[in-house]
């Protein structure tokens, strides 16, 4: 009986609904004849019917025929030489200003009559809300090269570097195409399908050695790698230590050369000596292991380069080896402050692929968890911000105290304090225990408002905090959109963009709340905006707790090796730190073919260098704290 259950497949989803409006396709087609695939435009209204839940969805959808010969894959295929014109046309004429996500998929073998290629994907959004326009560009696997769009879309800066790092696609014209997560001198491109990881045992889980003949125990690392699984020539292997040091030297040389050459002022009246200071990887202000190489002139920052990857564990490769369900506990480890929303984003993206509905009660539970998570995150962000300003631990401990109470609630419902593994595609793992709502209501009604107000007074009225944060690290709305930042960092610049309103997922369209914004986009506004958002979250929580119905919490019976019909989806939610998206590609198997995380924290770091330039070195710490990042999510 059990075996039968295992072998059952779940390929039952109906045709997908794509949000790309027909008008966009027609205008693109008119402007770039012959540049786009397919040659024949989809007939108007041919697409699937719009869902009833999406009042913000586009009324007409484009059918799945867009990407040639690729059923269920969405978007427009653009020739590489037209990429930049098409993107700027979309941005300038059709208002698709927000380049949210950019990544690549490797196809080492020919699929659907296409030769082996690397497929680079761009997802663009409108700031007025609605669905996305996905663009695909193909490049050959050998000598992969594409034009860089960083000059027009600064949001692509880190993402192009990541694609270069992970897939080996060279972006011509990128100002600083170094590896993002791996080190210079690393051999191979880890997310290519033919690159095998250390501890490599099999392509996909579950491994055959575990069952039914799992008597032959071994530790994975006993079998490893520097022998069979890591691609290194014997020369490199034999003297791996000294050359490695040289490689690090090479990385530093590339980094410092760029830093020292950028924005020199030859006409400076006073001759001063500049110095390069490395803050991190171990620095108390960096929330983990994050390094900022800073070029200083006295106390003034002339240039700043962030260096990532110290926490890199190739999460995306692990994700492609796992089965669909096995990834859920791994997502907890991305933004470990907000495991609940990481779970949720992944499940929302999977549900998009599966076409599953979520029962009422589960939707409410999801919203309660997300909003509690948001309250905790913003309290902590404010608390640790005070820590970074030099208040030592007082502020952060006040925040942590409230967080513990919320974690108690999370623990009672999911069993974990930080690693929840609670959301499931089609619902949640378990129902709320008896008395939970009353406890949560007591916390939300009686304690949190008082404590939030206290914290607000504690920080926002304080003259020292104000002096350290007002006017520091300011960004305009246009800059913020161009840099692709999201969440509180974007809204503090005056852009009222919130995925909960712009493209509501779940049942957010039923709740009464405001998308709060601030005007100046400086450190103080980012801090104050988080408090504004806590009040909105508490307001949502009150509504959700009063309205939560009884009923089912899971719409489908999950099987351990569930399959997902072929297709791709970019599902996103408004996580506490900003837009968190999962780009998933399924080839119909039990494992994701591609599993990409649009990491909020990484994208929010894009403007860091610009924000810090010209300021004082002490302000760098304040700016970093106001961006609110988790390294688990930046490095993945």
């Amino acid at each position, binding site marked *: 009986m059990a075996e039968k259950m295992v072998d059952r497949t779940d390929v039952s989803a109906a045709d997908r609904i794509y949000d790309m409006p027909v008008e966009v396709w027609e205008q693109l087609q008119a402007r770039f004849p012959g540049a786009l695939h397919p040659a024949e435009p989809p007939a108007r209204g041919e697409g699937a019917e719009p869902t009833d839940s999406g009042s913000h969805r586009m009324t007409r959808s484009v059918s799945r025929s867009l990407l040639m010969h690729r059923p269920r894959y969405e978007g427009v295929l653009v020739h590489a030489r037209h990429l930049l014109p098409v993107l700027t046309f979309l941005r300038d004429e059709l208002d698709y200003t927000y380049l949210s996500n950019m990544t690549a998929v490797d196809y080492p073998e020919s699929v659907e009559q296409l030769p082996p290629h690397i497929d680079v994907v761009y997802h663009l959004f409108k700031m007025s809300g609605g669905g996305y326009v996905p663009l695909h560009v193909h490049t050959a696997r050998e000598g992969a090269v594409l034009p860089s769009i960083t000059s027009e879309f600064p949001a692509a800066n880190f993402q192009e570097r990541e694609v270069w790092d992970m897939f080996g696609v060279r972006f011509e014209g990128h100002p600083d195409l170094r590896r993002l997560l791996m080190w210079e001198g690393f051999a191979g491109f880890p997310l290519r399908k033919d690159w095998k990881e250390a501890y490599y045992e099999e392509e996909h*889980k579950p491994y055959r050695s575990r069952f*039914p003949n799992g008597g032959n125990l071994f530790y994975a690392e006993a079998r490893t790698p520097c022998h069979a699984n890591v691609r290194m020539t014997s020369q490199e292997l034999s003297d791996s230590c000294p050359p490695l040091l040289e490689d690090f030297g090479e990385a530093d040389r590339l980094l410092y050369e760029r830093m020292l050459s950028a924005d020199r002022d030859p006409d400076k009246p006073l001759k001063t000596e500049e110095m390069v200071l490395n803050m991190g990887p171990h620095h108390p202000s960096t929330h983990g292991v994050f390094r900022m190489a800073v070029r200083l002139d006295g106390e003034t920052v002339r240039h700043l380069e962030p260096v990532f990857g110290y926490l890199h564990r190739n999460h995306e490769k692990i994700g492609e080896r796992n089965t669909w369900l096995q990834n859920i506990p791994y997502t907890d480890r991305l933004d470990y402050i907000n495991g609940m929303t990481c779970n949720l984003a992944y499940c929302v993206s999977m549900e998009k692929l599966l076409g599953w509905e979520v029962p009422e009660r589960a939707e409410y539970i999801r919203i309660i968890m997300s909003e509690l998570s948001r309250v905790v995150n913003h309290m902590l962000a404010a608390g640790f911000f005070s820590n970074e300003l030099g208040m030592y631990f007082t502020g952060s401990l*006040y925040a942590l*105290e409230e967080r513990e109470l919320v974690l108690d609630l999370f*623990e009672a419902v999911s069993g974990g304090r930080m690693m929840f593994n609670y959301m499931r595609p089609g619902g949640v793992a378990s129902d709320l225990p008896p008395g939970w709502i009353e406890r949560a209501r007591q916390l939300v009604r009686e304690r949190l408002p008082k404590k939030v107000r206290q914290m607000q007074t504690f920080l926002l009225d*304080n003259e020292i905090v104000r002096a350290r944060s007002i006017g520091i690290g300011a960004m305009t709305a246009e800059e913020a959109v161009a840099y692709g930042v999201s969440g509180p960092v974007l809204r503090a610049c005056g852009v009222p963009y919130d995925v909960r309103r712009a493209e509501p997922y779940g049942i957010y369209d039923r709740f009464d709340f405001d998308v709060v914004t601030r005007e100046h986009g400086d450190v103080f506004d980012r801090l104050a905006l988080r408090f504004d958002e806590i009040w909105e979250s508490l307001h949502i929580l009150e509504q959700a707790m009063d309205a939560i119905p009884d009923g089912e919490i899971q719409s489908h019976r999950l099987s351990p090796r569930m399959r997902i019909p072929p297709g791709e989806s970019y599902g996103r939610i408004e996580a506490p730190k900003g837009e968190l998206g999962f780009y998933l590609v399924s080839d119909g198997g039990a494992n994701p073919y591609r599993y990409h995380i649009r990491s909020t924290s990484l994208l929010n770091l894009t403007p860091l260098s610009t924000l810090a330039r010209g300021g004082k070195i002490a302000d760098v710490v304040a700016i970093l704290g106001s961006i609110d990042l988790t390294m688990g999510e930046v490095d993945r």
Partner: protein
Amino acid sequence: MYGSGIIKTLAITMYHFVMTYVDDVRHWLGRGEDKTLRATEGLPGEGIFTLQYPQERPSLPERYRNLPFLVIDAETEQLRCTACGVCAQICPTQCIWIERAKEPESGRPRRYPMAYNIDVSLCMSCGFCAEFCPFDAIKMDQDYEVATYSRPGFVSAREMAKPESYHAGIHPRAYAQEENEGDE
């Protein structure tokens, strides 16, 4: 007045300090609830709250999970596990190793695990094995004091199996529900 904000900030710190003692006095006067309960069930007071671990311990919620264990059935006094392999398939870290027993003569598989090993240094306590087990044969434990001086590595879950009564003790609500479903 410039500086009033700083005074307010300091007043809040002072408030926390004073309330710590007020909370304690309330507790001594018997108006405070049980301290361990206060840590997990109700709302703690306004001041700084400390539990003197390990003398005082918070009560754990029923769903708290740390490391799985196999269940010995109360009626048959055998492992409930049928070596179906669902847990080994769903395990995200692939830390469960099962060898299915075989009939000595025919070599046909029996519904019993010959060996059931868990690499506890790899287990991330996600609870999937307990959630997906069709026979309620594996459950999550609540023992959180598992630190050792050496790497524990593989643990034979078959030998470390715990009786059904233990499961019923730590998961009263879930156990009652399972029993109800079994009766129907």
